[in-house]
């Protein structure tokens, strides 16, 4: 199973090009998960100890204000990485994530990976670099979303 997950990781832009022993290590921290449509994947404030590689289905990133409806900020689909709060203190989720459809994903043990990164800083640096790309791409898209370019000016 490790080899299957390794292959999955190697094919993904976030991990592509990583040395195979490191890929195997990361893969070793992974296991397959499923969520049913409507199921919460994680909630704001919970301890962030894992990240997910989505294999099928759609996940919605949401904010639930005290009153009124939940705001769906963004959706992620197959092939996307869900979750980076496991890498950065305070290691808690900043948003809710919910399966909009049935979702199949591979979950990775963030705590285990973090400990290994502390011991092996070069692995840590590599993972930081790769996840930083995910965060920046998301930030860029969010900024454009904020600009409301289709709206009528003034």
């Amino acid at each position: 199973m490790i080899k299957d997950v390794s292959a999955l990781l190697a094919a993904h832009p976030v991990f592509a090009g990583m040395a195979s022993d490191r890929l195997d290590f990361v893969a070793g921290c992974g296991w397959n998960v499923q969520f049913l449509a409507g199921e919460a994947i994680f909630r704001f404030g919970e301890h962030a100890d894992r990240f997910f590689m989505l294999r099928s289905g759609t996940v919605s990133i949401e904010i639930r204000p005290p009153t009124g409806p939940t705001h769906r900020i963004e959706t992620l689909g197959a092939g996307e990485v869900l979750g980076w709060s496991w890498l950065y203190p305070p290691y808690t989720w900043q948003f809710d994530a919910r399966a909009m459809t049935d979702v199949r994903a591979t979950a990775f043990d963030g705590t285990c990976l973090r400990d290994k990164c502390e011991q092996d800083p070069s692995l840590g640096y590599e993972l930081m670099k790769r996840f930083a790309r995910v965060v920046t791409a998301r930030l860029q898209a969010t900024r454009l979303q904020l600009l409301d370019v289709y709206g009528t000016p003034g």
Partner: protein
Amino acid sequence: MLPRPYRVLARRVDTRDTVTLELAPVRDRQAHRLAAPHGRSRPGQFNMLYAFGVGEIPISVSGDAADRGRLVHTIRSVGAVSEALCRLRPGDELGVRGPFGTAWPVAEAEGQDVVIVAGGIGLAPLRPALYHLLAQRERYGHVSLLYGARRPEEMLYVDELKRWRSRLDLDVLVTVDKATENWRGAVGFVTTLVRRAEMAAGSAVAMVCGPELMMRYAAAELLGRGMAAERVHVSLERNMKCGLGLCGHCQLGPSFVCRDGPVFSFASVRDLLQTPEV
């Protein structure tokens, strides 16, 4: 150049501020030598539409370029002239001059994968290209339509989108910036869809239309996937008054957008788009 009178055959409300008009030339009136010829437009071209007594504005053709009997335009009400055009009803007449401008490279794209990226009302000038691709489907590789709108209720051609979605030979990916409770689809800026488009990036052709900012970033995403800047095409908008390259208003660097555009390859305009106030 003299406008030709056209009559509104049908009017359809697309969204709160957008209307699609189906027009036909008024044939029973004596045509003048100087009147604009009723030319068959090519996908991507535009006409100057004249609302009697109010003014004239450039609007892209949004219907099937192959249909000689009907001229279709989708108009967003943002000013005096567009508002007047949006208020026209079947039987009303307006003036039409054109078609003007360069077209989407539908011939050049034959044999390749095609990615169509539309933002907001940008889907209107792209629809004729999609019609052409679908009418000659066997001449193209994989075809995707990536469409981003502000909100679900501001999407254009919703019925048609559903029909296109059900085709097996067309990938339709839709996203909105801001979701409503009932929206079950993707949420996020349209550039996030580019990642998911299936294409042989080295040879694929892209046609991108929407607000200029959206086109800039969508083009960057497409280039990031390995597409050549010469094969990414955008449709630009500048202040157009004559449509003929004579009034000087629409200049973008050395180009007259009404005559050398509005469709340009991204390679040819990339530097200009990056220079502020050019």
